[in-house]
């Protein structure tokens, strides 16, 4: 593995328990409710070791909630009636999630709002390193400066002493990427990390994220509503609709030949962005009023009585693909 920076990568597995074949993150049948709202329903996903998984879906479908469950920062009032999240084989949902903090790096959605304006940027990252990284403060500083070089932030020494408002949005996102890598994580999770940025900066940041994760052999869980971004960053993709995974597979294959009726309709109307299905009847259900069974059935041209009874299981399609619709092979009546 080519490593550009000067320090050795910490082995990402803490013990012999984790092996190369085992996914670094495994989400199993995860349901999350917030009060009466059933936000996620039986979500099952794996992030392969040193691989990238994208989660794509319209806004409000539960992408951020999924990441917050992984990070152990679900909002107050959230309950998890069902499921498990295994990180390196360790259940981080029921055990104290704090033990894995630092081993999961987080790149937030909005670089403008995610740094505290009244503290120096450097101090905020050092505080995280003090909690989770080995070594002394001097080691941390040397390492962070290396990382700021790696994310191509100009004049890293001076940057550490600046306050967040003294950086542009793109620079702040570079800082936050460096922060996400500061404790030698095995997994990086990123929540639409470029939505708040302009298009040119977006491309640079995505390239950087992709390059750094590949160079360092990191796994990446990446959330987006943008298919272009998805294709640029992720090997594999899971399509989410109203808190259910409807399709899962290699990015190219899913984008070129979607199988689930929702994915087919969505990609037909909006080939670049997951936004609402404009001309298609019905709307995304409110989180408090999810239909039973397949949550897409009220809008689905292939729906029949069975669809309202139980959530359809994921059907394997071969070549690492699966789809949550037994009728996916049928053509739409009016197409």
């Amino acid at each position, binding site marked *: 593995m080519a490593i550009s920076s000067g320090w050795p990568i910490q082995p990402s597995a803490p013990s012999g328990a984790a092996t190369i074949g085992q996914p670094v993150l495994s989400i199993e049948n995860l349901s999350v409710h917030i009060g009466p709202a059933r936000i996620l329903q039986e979500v099952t996903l794996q992030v392969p070791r040193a691989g990238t998984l994208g989660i794509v879906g319209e806004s409000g479908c539960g992408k951020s909630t999924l990441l917050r469950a992984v990070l152990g*920062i679900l909002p107050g009032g959230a309950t998890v009636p069902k499921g498990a999240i295994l990180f390196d084989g360790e259940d981080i949902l029921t055990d104290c999630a704090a033990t894995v*903090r630092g081993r999961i790096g987080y790149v937030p959605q909005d670089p403008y*709002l*995610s740094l505290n304006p009244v*503290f120096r940027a450097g101090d905020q990252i050092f505080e995280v390193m003090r909690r*989770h990284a080995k070594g002394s403060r001097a080691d941390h500083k040397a390492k962070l400066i290396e990382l700021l070089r790696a994310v191509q932030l100009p004049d890293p020494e001076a940057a550490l002493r600046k*306050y967040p408002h003294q950086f542009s949005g793109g620079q702040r996102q570079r800082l936050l990427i460096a922060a996400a890598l500061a404790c030698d994580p095995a997994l990086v999770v990123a929540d639409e990390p470029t939505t708040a940025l302009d298009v040119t900066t977006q491309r640079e940041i995505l390239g950087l994220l992709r390059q750094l994760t590949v160079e360092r052999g990191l796994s990446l869980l990446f959330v987006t509503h943008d298919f272009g971004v998805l294709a640029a960053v992720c090997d594999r993709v899971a399509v989410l609709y109203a808190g259910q995974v409807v399709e899962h597979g290699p990015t190219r294959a899913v984008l070129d030949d979607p199988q689930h009726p929702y994915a087919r309709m969505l990609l037909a109307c909006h080939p670049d962005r997951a936004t609402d299905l404009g001309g298609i009847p019905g709307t995304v259900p409110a989180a408090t009023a999810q239909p039973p069974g397949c949550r897409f059935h009220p809008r689905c041209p292939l729906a029949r009585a069975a669809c309202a009874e139980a959530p359809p299981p994921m059907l394997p399609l071969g070549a690492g693909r699966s789809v949550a619709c037994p009728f996916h092979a049928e053509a739409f009546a009016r197409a």
Partner: protein
Amino acid sequence: MARYILRRVLLALPALFGLILLTFVLTRVIPGDPAATLAGDAATPAQLAEIRARYGLDRPILEQAFVHVRQVLTGDLGSSIFSGRPVMEEIVFRLPATLELTFAAMLLSIGLGIPLGLLAALNHNGPVDHLIRIVSVGGLAVASFWLAIMFQLLFAMEWDVLPLRGRSDLAYGAPPFHTGFYLIDSLIAGQGALFLDSLWHLILPAVTLCLPGLASIARFTRSGVLEALQKDYVLYARAAGYGRFHLAAIYVLRNAITVTVTQIGLLFGALISGAVAVEAIFDWPGLGTYAVQAILSADYKALLAVTLVVGVVYAVINVLVDVLQALIDPRVAEDIR
């Protein structure tokens, strides 16, 4: 930062100049005809004319205004119409008394208000939060003169644990004058017993005076902390492993305090006006009692001096608050043109 401070000071100057002009207008309007007041009820027209000439009241109004501004700028606030003594002489003794009282009340308001607000926020909608809310609404609603009298009845007369009035016991008298603050001057003079005695005398008036400010500081801190806890950077910090207590009590407090600090300037204004009643009740020889005497005796020179001095102190406090804010939140110094 230095430029920011300079700019704040320069911005305060026009306000002070406006205050000088305003005092001029007020002193010419409020007492009616100052010459008539000076001369008394039985004055003849000739005596009135003589007084007008002596005090320059017969000059054109613009000239009078000019003379007034020049006198104030050179520190000459004139002599009391009542006692004939220069008002500055009186102010020098009374201002420190009032400042000692208001600063003590301010320290109590801030020193207790911030932790209480924080406690309420940490216990959001819990019993402690409700208790603090009830007490702080009470603190705002209860008139300080009523509270002062209740305190006197209980602590001084019923239980006799705190002194009833004054800045120190007659037996001790006043310490040699350096700053006019008894707590400081008694220490300079090495009079430990007097220091304790002054502190003892300060407790009831300062506690009475601090309550409304304490209530509003607690409320602002509470809402500031709760608001800051909703921010994305808190979510980010939680993902980085900050615990709940550390987040609320340390990490977010600095954000919350920026709002609280803006209140300190306003608080000072409230304390000064509250001091008028509190000083009168506790027989505290400060500017408030002086102002009351001046109003009752229509001593417009004294009133003018009190107004000006309070205005200057208020302006200084507000500049200090601005600087404090810039120290807490680095964006403040840069945002203002």
